[in-house]
């Protein structure tokens, strides 16, 4: 089976003097996969999505979407896209907007009308069918965005930060919708910097930072990667210990926080620094209560991967 998305050595920069925004990105997405495209702000996620949609061209490498170059009609016919900020024509109603978009897909007549009403029902916007979009809240616009992305019953759904700026209810609705689409065997590729959102719905993760693909695999693979985190619990004076850690330059490698029981929990992300940390603890007269490997969360694994790359 041919992959739905194929990126091969894709490189894109906006200036010859700066580092590429996306650098030698290679990945394949198979039919039915739900891929979370993770990365901090400025990692190159939106640029990658723009290239997948043909809005930007790669300077190096090749992209195929549904076996076609991304800017072709054949590819777009089968793609649903939800942009990061859902803004639509303020002077139209959801019905008029979806009718306009539906026409682009060659849908017409009663068939299109049925589709529009059913989609507005799905996104809980049926009561606002003939209201002007200018009066809608951000969440309502996002729902309209989802409806337009699903209008052509796409094989591939590309969502750019679908939950950004939404309240918890809105986020939950988005999550449920992604799950529903996944059940219909649609391929979903969505970018996010919200790790919790990705953890619950994806069966594959790709982590991008500073334009480089740092991780590509399942959630389980990511959690396994996190085994290298060492958890240390000590009793010590928190400000004094924090000061010492900062002075020795270990701050980047250790995450520490004080528990309500006045104990200090530390996550050490770099094994090589273990003995340096022990020396600091000795100097701070800390009493070590626990040392052990930690089965971390996806969030911690994410931070670790990003952190390792930045240190390199």
């Amino acid at each position, binding site marked *: 089976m041919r992959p739905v998305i194929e990126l091969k050595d894709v490189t894109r920069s906006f200036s010859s003097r700066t580092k590429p925004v996306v650098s030698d990105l290679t990945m394949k997405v198979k039919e039915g996969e739900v891929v979370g495209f993770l990365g901090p702000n400025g990692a190159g996620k939106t640029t990658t999505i723009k290239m997948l949609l043909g809005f930007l061209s790669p300077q190096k490498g090749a992209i195929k979407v549904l076996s076609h170059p991304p800017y072709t009609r054949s590819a*777009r016919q089968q*793609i649903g896209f939800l*942009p990061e900020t859902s*803004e639509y024509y303020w002077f139209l109603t959801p019905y*008029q907007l979806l009718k*306009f978009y539906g026409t682009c*897909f060659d849908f017409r007549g009663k068939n299109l009308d049925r589709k529009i009403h059913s989609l507005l029902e799905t996104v809980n916007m049926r009561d606002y069918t003939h209201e002007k979009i200018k009066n809608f809240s951000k969440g309502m616009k996002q729902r309209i965005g989802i409806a337009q992305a699903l209008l052509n019953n796409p094989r591939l759904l590309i969502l750019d930060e679908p939950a950004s700026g939404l309240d918890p209810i809105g986020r939950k609705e988005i999550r449920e919708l992604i799950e529903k689409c996944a059940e219909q065997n649609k391929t979903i590729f969505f970018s996010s910097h919200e790790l919790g959102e990705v953890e619950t719905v994806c069966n594959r993760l790709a982590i991008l930072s500073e334009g480089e693909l740092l991780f590509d695999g399942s959630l389980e693979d990511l959690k396994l990667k996190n085994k290298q985190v060492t958890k240390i619990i000590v009793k010590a004076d928190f400000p004094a210990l924090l000061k010492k850690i900062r002075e020795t330059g270990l701050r980047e490698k250790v995450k520490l926080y004080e528990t309500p029981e006045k104990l200090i929990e530390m996550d050490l992300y770099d094994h090589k620094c273990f003995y340096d940390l022990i020396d600091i603890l000795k100097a701070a007269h800390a009493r070590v209560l626990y040392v052990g490997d930690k089965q971390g969360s996806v969030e911690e694994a994410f931070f670790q991967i990003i952190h390792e790359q930045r240190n390199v």
Partner: protein
Amino acid sequence: MKNVCYVMRNVLLEYSAKKDLYVLFFVMVLVIFLTGYLTVFNLDTEAKILKDIPLFFMPIFSLLVGVLTIYGQVNNEIKNRTLYPLLAKPISKAEFLLGKFLGSVIITLVFLYVIALFYWLFLSFRGLSLDIIFVHYLILLTVRIFLIIAFTLFVSVFMTPAATFTIAILFFLISDEIPHTLSELMQVPDLHPVSDILIRSVYLIIPHTDIFDISRAVIHNWEPVPTHLILPIVAYGLFFTLVFLFLGTWIFHKKEL
């Protein structure tokens, strides 16, 4: 073509929801009616003034409507991010631009023809008639509207809205004079050969918009322009319109979003 029609329909819906053009329309109607209050002792002169003043403002207001409705269309779609969900669908950039062009043309022509109707009613009320030359005037103004809208659209695909607006207004204000100035320059004796070639090339390349203005003929009730003269002028205007549309589409096609 249906994609083009829907983009065009959106432009019409957008401007019917905005107030800007209604203001321009009422100002123009006001100008026509206020002209009627100008009293001049000589009846012949009064008839000329009644025709002259509205005819002076009619192209200005119409072309201003054309520029206003088109200059920010592309940039606003990018700024408001409405372009991305649209272009992710099977619609080409050419269809998008053509729809914008046609939408703006229809709004401007509706504005022009309604104003022309008011003008005609006003003159009839004052016992003055308009000859067939006025229809020719409207045909040529229509072509000029096509041209300025296509030019503004072309500039808007690679310039900011403010720069586009300024260039379009400058084009409208000085385009009638440029051919005259160039033709005078070509008469200068001992012109450097390079300058001479340059001036002649520019003279040939730029659209001579002055040929679309026959307002003098309307004021003085001249004989109708023969068809064999009108048609080449219309074809000339349409040719430049197509050139600007083609260039605009080509640049927009290459433009990264």
